[in-house]
C-alpha cells in the first residue's frame, strides 16, 4: 500500500487501473478529462493492459461502453455534466441491457447558463436511469468506490451499471492523501469478471436488447431491473464488509457523523458534507447537539438506514446541491417520502438549496440552517424551503447587471454615447 497526494480525478483513474479494466471508451469534457488522460498514459506506457478509444460523442461513448460490457469485458468510462445529458438516452438503454460497468461522473452544473463548476443537477438527471449511484466526499472514497462499484455491478444479483460521482473542482482538482491498495489485494477483492451469459460468442449466439411487444413483458423486465437495484443494497453491505476486512476502510450506504445523540441533523451528498462535518464540530463546541448524515448510495435508496439514522430527531436540514425547477430539492423530496408516516420520523424536515454551480456553503450558513431547523422543530412546523443566497452575492450580481445594462445602452445608441463622450 502506498500513500500519495492524488486529485479526485487521479484517484478515479487509479480505481480503474487497479480494477484492471479491459476497455475505456472516452470523450473529453471538463472537469473529467484528466481521468481519461491518466488512463491513456498508463495504457501507452504498458502499465495497464486495456484499450482506450476516443468516441465522437458521449452518446456513442456510452453505447460503446454498454456494447463492450455486453460482449463480456470489464469496462470503465467517465464524463461530466453536458456529456452525461448528451448520453442520457444510452444510460437508460444500457442499464436495460443489464451490462455491468462503471461510469465516473465528475459533477458539474448544467446549462443554461453554461458553467464549469460543480453541483448535482447532472447526476440527479440520471437518477431514474437504472444506473446505481455512489456519491463520494473524499479522493480516497473515489478510489475505493470505483473498486466497490465493480463488485456491486458484476454481482449476478445486480448486473446493472453504476455511476461513481465526485464533485467537479472540489474533488476532481483537489489533492488529498490517498492510500493506493496493493494490486494483489484488489485482485483478491474483485476477482476477474465472469460475464456468464452476457457476451457474444460464435458458438453461443444470443439476441440482446431485443424489442418487446406489450406492457406485460415490458413491465416484467423493468420490474426485474428495479428488484436488482434494490438487491444492490444487500450486495453493497456484503461488499463493504469485505472491503473493510481487506483494506481497513468501511464505506456504508449511509455515513453518519455524531448523529446518534444529535437533535438536529444535516443530510447531504458529496464533498460538501466535509464542510458540514466541520460545521458540526463547531456547533458541538458551542454546545449544539448537531450531527450529519451523508448518503453514499443514492440508488438504490437506503431508506431503512436513513429512517434508522434519523429516528427521533427534532429536526433535519436537507441540503440539496441541486434544484428540480418548480419543485425544489430532490433529496428533500426523496427523504420526505421515505420518512412520511414513520412513527419515529423527525419532527420537521427543512429544505435548503445551495451550492449550485460552484457556489460555496459557508460555515455561518450551516449555523443558520441548524438554528432555523431547531426553531421550526420547536414551533412544530417545517420552514418554507430556502434558496441559499447572501446579500453580498446579490450585490455582485447587481453590479454585473449594471455593467450589462450600461453596455447595452452603449450599443443600442452609439451616437448618443459618442455625443456624451464629446
Amino acid at each position, binding site marked *: 500500500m502506498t500513500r500519495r497526494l492524488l486529485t479526485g480525478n487521479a484517484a478515479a483513474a487509479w480505481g480503474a487501473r487497479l480494477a484492471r479494466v*479491459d*476497455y475505456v*471508451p472516452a470523450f473529453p469534457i471538463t472537469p473529467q478529462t484528466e481521468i481519461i488522460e491518466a488512463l491513456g498514459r498508463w495504457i501507452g506506457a504498458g502499465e495497464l*493492459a*486495456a*484499450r482506450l*478509444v476516443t*468516441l*465522437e*460523442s458521449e*452518446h*456513442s*461513448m456510452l*453505447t*460503446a*461502453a*454498454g*456494447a*463492450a*460490457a*455486453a*460482449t*463480456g*469485458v470489464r*469496462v470503465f468510462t467517465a464524463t461530466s455534466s453536458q456529456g452525461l445529458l448528451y448520453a442520457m*438516452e*444510452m444510460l437508460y*438503454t444500457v442499464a436495460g*441491457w443489464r451490462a455491468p460497468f462503471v461510469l465516473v461522473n465528475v459533477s458539474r452544473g448544467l446549462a443554461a447558463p453554461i458553467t464549469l463548476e460543480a453541483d448535482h443537477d447532472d447526476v440527479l438527471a440520471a437518477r431514474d436511469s437504472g444506473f446505481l449511484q455512489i456519491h463520494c466526499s473524499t479522493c480516497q472514497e473515489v478510489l475505493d468506490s470505483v473498486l466497490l462499484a465493480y463488485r456491486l455491478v458484476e454481482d449476478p444479483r445486480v448486473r446493472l451499471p453504476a455511476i461513481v460521482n465526485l464533485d467537479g473542482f472540489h474533488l476532481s482538482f483537489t489533492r488529498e492523501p490517498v492510500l493506493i491498495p496493493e494490486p494483489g489485494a484488489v485482485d483478491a477483492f474483485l476477482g476477474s469478471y465472469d460475464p456468464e451469459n452476457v457476451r*457474444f*460468442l*460464435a*458458438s453461443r*449466439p*444470443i*439476441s*440482446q*436488447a*431485443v*424489442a*418487446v*411487444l406489450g406492457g406485460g*413483458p415490458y413491465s416484467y423486465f423493468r420490474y426485474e431491473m428495479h428488484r436488482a437495484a434494490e438487491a444492490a443494497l444487500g450486495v453493497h453491505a456484503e461488499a463493504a464488509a469485505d472491503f473493510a476486512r481487506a483494506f481497513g476502510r468501511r464505506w456504508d450506504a449511509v455515513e453518519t457523523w455524531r448523529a446518534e445523540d444529535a437533535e438536529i441533523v444535516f443530510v447531504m451528498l458529496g464533498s460538501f458534507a466535509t464542510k458540514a462535518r466541520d460545521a458540526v464540530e463547531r456547533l458541538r463546541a458551542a454546545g449544539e447537539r448537531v450531527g450529519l448524515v451523508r448518503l453514499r448510495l443514492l440508488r438504490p435508496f437506503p431508506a431503512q438506514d436513513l429512517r434508522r439514522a434519523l429516528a427521533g430527531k427534532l429536526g433535519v436540514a436537507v441540503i440539496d446541491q441541486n434544484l428540480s425547477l418548480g419543485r425544489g430539492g430532490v433529496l428533500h423530496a426523496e427523504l420526505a417520502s421515505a420518512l412520511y408516516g414513520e412513527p419515529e420520523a423527525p419532527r420537521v424536515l427543512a429544505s435548503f438549496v445551495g451550492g449550485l454551480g460552484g457556489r460555496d456553503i459557508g460555515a455561518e450558513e450551516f449555523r443558520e440552517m441548524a438554528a432555523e431547523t431547531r426553531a421550526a422543530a420547536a414551533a412544530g412546523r417545517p420552514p418554507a424551503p430556502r434558496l441559499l443566497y447572501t446579500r453580498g452575492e446579490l450585490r455582485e450580481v447587481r453590479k454585473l447587471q449594471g455593467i450589462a445594462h450600461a453596455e447595452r445602452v452603449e450599443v443600442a445608441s452609439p451616437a448618443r454615447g459618442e455625443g456624451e463622450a464629446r
Partner: protein
Amino acid sequence: MSETRYRRMQDLPSTHLLGSGTAMCAGCGGLQAIQEIYDVLGEKTVFVNAAGCMTMLSVYPFTPFRGSWIYTAMASAPAGAQGVRDALDVLLAKGRIPPEEDLEVVVLTGDGSAYGMGLSATSGAIDRGLDFLYVCYDNEGYGNTGQQSSAATPHAARTASDALAAGFPGEKKDLFSIWAANRPAYVATAVGAEPVDLARKVEKARGLVGPRLLIVLAPCPTGWDFDPGEGIEIGRLAVATGIWPLKEWEAGRVVHTKVRRPRLPVEEYLSRQGRFRHLFEPERREAELAAIQARVDAYWQGVG
C-alpha cells in the same frame, strides 16, 4: 471482382439462413436484401441494429437470426459495433476466447439513421478505422413510423410528411459520396433485385478489413405505394433507369458494377409507384418529369 464465386444466379447460396415469420411487411425490399446478405455473411455475425423497421425482426423471445443481435438506439449503432468489435479484440488479444469464437460485426440501420441521426457515429467509426460492415437498407423515408420524408427521400416523392402537391421538395442526399469522402475500406450500393451483384459486393466487403459500408435500396410497398408482388420489378427498374446506380468505391476509385445502355426512361420506374402518381395524374407534369430525367442523365454523363 474477378475471383468471385458469384457469377450467375445458380452460384448464389441455396440454403437460406434467415428464419421466416418476421413482422416485416409483405414484399419488403429491405428484408429481401438482408436475406441475401445473410446467406453470404453466414451466422458467425452479430448484427448491431439502430431504430427502424428491422428493429422488429427480433422481438422477445423470437429472432430470425441464427447468429447474434443487439439493438442499440437510433443514433449510435456504429458506436455499438465499436464496443463489440473492441471487446472481441481485447478478448482475443488476452486469450480469453479462441479465434473461432470471433464474429463479424454488422451494423444494420435504415436510411433515417444512416442519412441523418446516425451519420456522426458512422463518420466517427470510419475515422477510427473500425473493422465492421455497415448495411443501410434505404427505403427512402422513415418507414417504420409511416414513411415521413428523410434525407434519403427522392425529389418529388409524396410521403406522409410531404403528402400534398409536389411531394418532397428536396433532393436525395448522396450518402455514398459522403461515406466515400471519409475514405473507408469500401463503399457500395446495391439492391436486392440484383442478387448476384449484391452477393459479390458482400463477398468483397467480407474479404476486406476496416470500415465497409453498403447502401441497399429497399423498395417499400407500404411507403412507396405499390403492390408487394412488384417489388423486385421496381428494384430492377431503379437500376435499369439509372436512378439507382450500382457502384462501389475502393481506394479512391468509383466503379459502376452494372451499366445499362440504353437506360430506360425514368418514368418507367416512377409510374409504377403511388408516391409519384401526382407526376402522371390527373395530368402529366412534363416539366417535373423532364427535370428528373435530366438529373439522371447528367449523373451518367459524368460517369462517361
